[in-house]
């Protein structure tokens, strides 16, 4: 709901977000698990650990799918990767990509087709729940993980395994290091000073700034949102800042449903948006946004605009950039070139919190028809948790795509961020252990502070990893989704003629689309989920 269901809604933030990852840097000692597969590393000869009972005598080729564009440097990286994999576990790997634009249509098709496939990137935003329900993924048992992915098992918080459960069964291997990020918004500090606007320290201070921009900068639109990602953000920043941080229960998985909960409520009580307890919070935000829309603070073409606020901001056409802690790094880099000053303020709830990312935000699943699940897990264990592999798939080839300067990652001489054939993070291996990665050199102090602040702002959210099982309510969920698009998104933009009337119609449509049935089912499922997590 906050970002829309459109897949690219998730796609782009994630791409960007990943440019730089969360924790980086602390050297993690190479523990004894490294010797799990190898009897004697010192001797340099590789031997299979017969004690673990893993037969690796046959050479195996596994195939996987990642999301994103295939990078020009990918072939070299794969070659290097295969060299290492062949040496370590007698396996080679082929990796294909599903492009962001095709994700929605192709993800389900790749799994349904007869293609030979062993693993695929997945996450709560990337159809994990939907495909698991269709039987596309192999069920993962704890002892499999312990046996074939010992490094990852050790590195992962036990909570992560519980988060991935659907109906008590696990179908994915979640990342060991979820991103630490909160919503942020960047403003032009230089313009703020120029027009003598009082300092902006939080979202609620922003109105005078918007007004000044509207009045003094005829070529700028104060807020310019796009149709896929930022479209609902002005509303939700406002809603969170004035009341609570409400999240739609289906936000991460399939879009919107009208079922919301306060992310700071540990009980996670579920509401309908139009319930008397919450509707006034929503209406107040809607009045304000409508006021802004009518005054021209928000672009009138949001439904057809494909340019994200951050790009409009960077090209000087808009005064606000929406983003998150991770992707704000781009702003600093580019703004310095322009000679502007920016200030980044977080978009938090009234309490000052933002719901934490779950472990199942990034991960991979083994495809149910895979012929080599064991070898796949072993290979992924190395890729995710072995620093050498980890660095390779994330930053590329040392000397060619990166060099290490003072223990930090930097570009080699003669290579710029534009000409680098394997830019960090874009290869799609977002599930690797990011604590093992070294820090990029170009982070400035302001950005490091932002990241530090985010660590304190994130707060646990009862349903951050909840994946609804919709097999019995598919019809209703599909219909609610479309009701949200048709009747709630215009409210989010302030495009409606009358706020109260719009909410009445929205309520009516939700009900007729089968809201009550979904609500009942979700109450039941969330109760089960909470019990499961408590265990």
């Amino acid at each position, binding site marked *: 709901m906050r970002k829309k269901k459109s897949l690219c809604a998730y796609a782009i933030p994630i791409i960007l977000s990943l440019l730089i990852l969360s924790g980086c840097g602390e050297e993690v000692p190479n523990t004894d698990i490294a010797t799990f597969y190898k009897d004697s590393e010192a001797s340099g000869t590789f031997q299979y650990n017969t004690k673990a009972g893993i037969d690796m005598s046959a050479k195996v080729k596994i195939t996987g799918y990642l999301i994103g564009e295939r990078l020009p440097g990918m072939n070299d990286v794969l070659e290097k990767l295969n060299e290492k994999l062949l040496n370590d576990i007698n396996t080679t790997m082929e990796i294909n990509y599903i492009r962001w634009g095709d994700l929605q249509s192709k993800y389900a098709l790749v799994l349904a087709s007869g293609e030979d496939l062993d693993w695929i990137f997945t996450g709560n935003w990337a159809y994990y729940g939907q495909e698991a329900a269709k039987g596309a993924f192999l069920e993962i048992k704890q002892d499999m993980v312990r046996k074939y992915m010992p490094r990852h098992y050790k590195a992962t918080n036990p909570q992560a395994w519980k988060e991935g459960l659907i109906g008590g069964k696990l179908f994915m291997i979640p990342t060991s290091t979820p991103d630490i990020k909160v919503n942020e918004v960047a403003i032009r500090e230089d313009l703020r000073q120029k027009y003598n606007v009082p300092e902006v320290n939080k979202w609620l201070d922003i109105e005078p700034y918007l007004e000044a921009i509207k009045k003094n900068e005829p070529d700028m639109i104060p807020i310019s949102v796009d149709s896929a990602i930022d479209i609902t953000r002005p509303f939700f920043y406002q809603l969170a800042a004035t009341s609570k941080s409400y999240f739609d229960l289906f936000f991460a998985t399939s879009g919107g449903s009208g079922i919301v909960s306060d992310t700071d409520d540990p009980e996670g009580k579920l509401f309908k948006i139009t319930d008397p307890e919450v509707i006034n919070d929503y209406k107040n935000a809607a009045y304000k946004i409508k006021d802004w829309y009518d005054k021209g603070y928000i672009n*009138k073409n949001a439904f057809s605009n494909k340019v994200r606020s951050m790009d409009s901001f960077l090209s000087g056409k808009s005064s606000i950039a929406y983003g998150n802690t991770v992707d704000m790094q781009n702003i600093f880099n580019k703004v310095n070139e322009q000679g502007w000053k920016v200030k980044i303020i977080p978009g938090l709830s009234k309490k000052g919190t933002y719901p934490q990312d779950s472990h199942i935000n990034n991960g991979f699943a083994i495809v149910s028809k895979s012929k080599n699940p064991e070898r796949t897990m072993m290979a992924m264990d190395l890729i995710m948790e072995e620093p050498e592999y980890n660095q390779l798939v994330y930053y590329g080839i040392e000397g060619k795509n990166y060099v290490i300067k003072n223990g930090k990652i930097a570009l080699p001489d003669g290579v710029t961020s534009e000409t680098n054939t394997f830019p960090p993070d874009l290869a799609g291996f977002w599930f690797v252990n990011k604590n093992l990665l070294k820090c990029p050199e170009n982070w400035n102090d302001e950005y490091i502070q932002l990241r530090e602040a985010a660590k304190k702002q994130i707060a646990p959210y009862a349903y951050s990893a909840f994946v609804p099982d919709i097999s019995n309510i598919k019809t209703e969920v599909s219909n609610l*989704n479309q009701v949200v698009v048709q009747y709630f998104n215009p409210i989010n933009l302030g495009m409606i003629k009358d706020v109260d009337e719009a909410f009445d119609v929205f309520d009516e449509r939700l009900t007729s689309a089968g809201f009550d049935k979904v609500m009942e089912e979700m109450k039941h499922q969330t109760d089960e989920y909470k019990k499961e997590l408590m265990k």
Partner: protein
Amino acid sequence: MKSRINGGFFSEIYKNKVLYLMFLPVALYFIIFAYVPMGGIILAFKEFNIRGGILFSPWNGIENFRFFFASGKAWQVTKNTLEYNVVFLACYTFFSILTAIMISEISNKWFKKIAQSFMFLPYFISWVVVAAFIYNFFNYDYGLVNTLIKNVGGQPIDIYAEPANWVILLPVLYVWKWVGFGSVLYLAAIMGIDQECYEAATIDGANMFQKITKITLPLLRPTIIVLVLMGVGRILRGEFDMFYNIIGNNGILMDATDIIDTLVFRSLMGTQDFGMASAAGFYQSVLCFVIILIVNGVVRKVDNENALF
């Protein structure tokens, strides 16, 4: 009797073997891409899962159809689809014939070719690009049209917030895009008309208008009927590309511009359910089939020779 038909069938093939050989690729194309996939229709009655695939997934009766009718929008989108397509088909046919006749009457060969090429050009432009044109022409904040209006001191128009605009604009765009293609079909038919008819009419003193109404149009009738019937055959298949790219997810416009295809796409994007999508496709196909049977029946009654079947 039966053996005579069989014998007739094979001897017919033998007699015209070269012609049938030429037809073979077309036949294969339709068998592979149109007839074989038709078997997939069973998916509309199944609870699809990956292990079972299309053939072995469990049946679930008409459960998949429920989503479409429970949406509360089934009637509205069916009506929209039908209305838009009727208007599209009528405008398209009318303007294609008009253009074809005008082009055929132009004597300057050079101008004729240029005019035809320009009209044909939009056919090659995808709706994605058209949507970008529209956006840049009409967007409120810095669209071409609104900038002009603002410069002459007028009130800018917010086209994306007013459904009424689109009821006009969409058919206009449709005609703009397809008329070049349609006029070529009709032009070919006009070129096939025996020139002696026109010469005889000229000698009898007929003017251009009389020649068009008394010779060209009556002789075009079979072509018109066939092309319209083919258009009717797709009447419940909305022009998805057009609506999706130009209107997108604009909730304000949706009641006026939502068609079956966009509704299904929007609803199922999140759930990714093949069965439900097939059910909607099945619904469209059945209605199209019924409609074309009825229309063809009417044509057969009125003008037996020109009916499709």
